[in-house]
């Protein structure tokens, strides 16, 4: 991808991400996050993995965000919320922590020296296809895969118990 495309993509992603945390209305936050998810899917496409891009949209935009919208509708939270931030002290602390985090990331990445690295141009054939990912999951990553089903089982049972009772 050329640089102009990347800049446009970044503007879309960062702008919608900022909109997620700045909107007053949680529904608008959720829709902004859907835009962020789509822009990240475009980034995945430009990195040569269309399968992951589409799966990202199916799971995050099509399932996770639907759950958010459902909860907003069920609890009727979408309307009357004034824009509320936490106290001044925590705001300053938060911004300081974020700045420190960004500094640390960039420092450690440039220390390793990967920042200017160019990706290998001729990718191995079949890179990023569903076939390659499937072979990898079901040979090298079998145990994490089975563990994922235990995680999903725990989430299913836990969520049902929590939703059905009053704390």
């Amino acid at each position: 991808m050329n640089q102009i495309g990347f800049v446009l993509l970044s503007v879309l992603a960062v702008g919608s991400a900022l909109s997620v945390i700045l909107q007053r209305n949680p529904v608008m936050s959720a829709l902004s996050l859907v835009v962020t998810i789509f822009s990240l899917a475009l980034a995945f496409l430009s990195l040569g993995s269309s399968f992951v891009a589409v799966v990202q949209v199916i799971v995050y935009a099509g399932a996770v965000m639907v759950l958010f919208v459902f909860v907003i509708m069920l609890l009727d939270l979408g309307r009357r919320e004034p824009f509320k931030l936490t106290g001044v002290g925590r705001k300053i602390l938060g911004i300081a922590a974020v700045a420190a985090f960004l500094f640390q990331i960039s420092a450690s990445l440039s220390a390793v020296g990967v920042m200017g690295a160019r990706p290998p141009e001729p990718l191995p054939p079949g890179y990023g296809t569903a076939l390659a990912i499937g072979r990898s999951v079901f040979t090298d990553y079998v145990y994490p895969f089975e563990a994922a089903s235990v995680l999903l089982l725990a989430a299913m049972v836990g969520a049902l118990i929590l939703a059905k009772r009053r704390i």
Partner: protein
Amino acid sequence: MSQTVVVDIVRIAVILGMFLGCVAYLVWVERKLLGHIQIRVGPKRVGPYGLLQPIADFVKLVSKEDLTPPNAHRALFRLAPAIALVPAILSIAVIPFGGTIRVLGREMPIGIADINVGLLYVFAMSSMGVFGIALAGWSSNNKYSLMGGLRSSAQLISYEVSLGLSVLGVVLLAGTFSLREIVAAQHPIPFVALQPVGFLLFLMASSAEIARIPFDLPEAETELVAGFHTEYSSMKFAMFFVAEYANLVTVSAMAVTLFLGGWNGPFLPGPIWFALKTAAMLFLFIWVRGTLPRYRYDQLMRFGWKFLLPVALLNLLVTALIVALSGGEG
């Protein structure tokens, strides 16, 4: 480079125009057929055989007052029909209408785009439709709309899992998500012969996804006064309507592509076969609408989770077992 883009734009505009024309006339065909099923004649006043009826409908809708309820969330109320319509149009992008054609000395596949994850792309787009419905119901500030929006979205997501599982058998047999390769893999035998259960499951789950009878609870005129789009008028209502029929065409085309051999067929050119098969599927959907009653909501949910989901899983596992046991590739 720029010449290719111009060719692309013209090609896409032509396909989009034909698609929207099909959608407009599908409404006329449905009214006509339903009329005959119920021993009436259907539309006949506007033009010969009522053929100008879609145009009359359009003129009527566009000249209606466009009202926004006072307590509605204005931005979302306007955005919701667009969120319903745009993904419905985008779904057609990957459907292959035929083999290849020579234009300006270039070999071009007939269709808009050819991507290697076409099937998943259609799923991704159809899962966006939930947002349009949920937001329309929520932003209207009307009890019926909110209730209808919630019920419809719950129905759509309940059947989406079974829909995804029902086509995995096809993916297993073809070993790809590319719709073009899936069609090619059906060269002499269409997958409906190898996946009859999968085909039936697909039909049932997709009827629920596009809210057709017997799963048309989102409409449920008698109970919810049209559900999530009660408060919508004029072109905003028309956009939901177009999205609904666009989804019907897409589902029929997907059924043809995945199970009925796509554009494959003897003698006639590919796109003709594709159109004929899709028309047959559309006829089936309209016929079902003329015949069956509507489910109750609790029956609908129970059917989706207690019957469709386990049967789809079982079908997938049995298919996998047969593929694993059979010696050759496929």
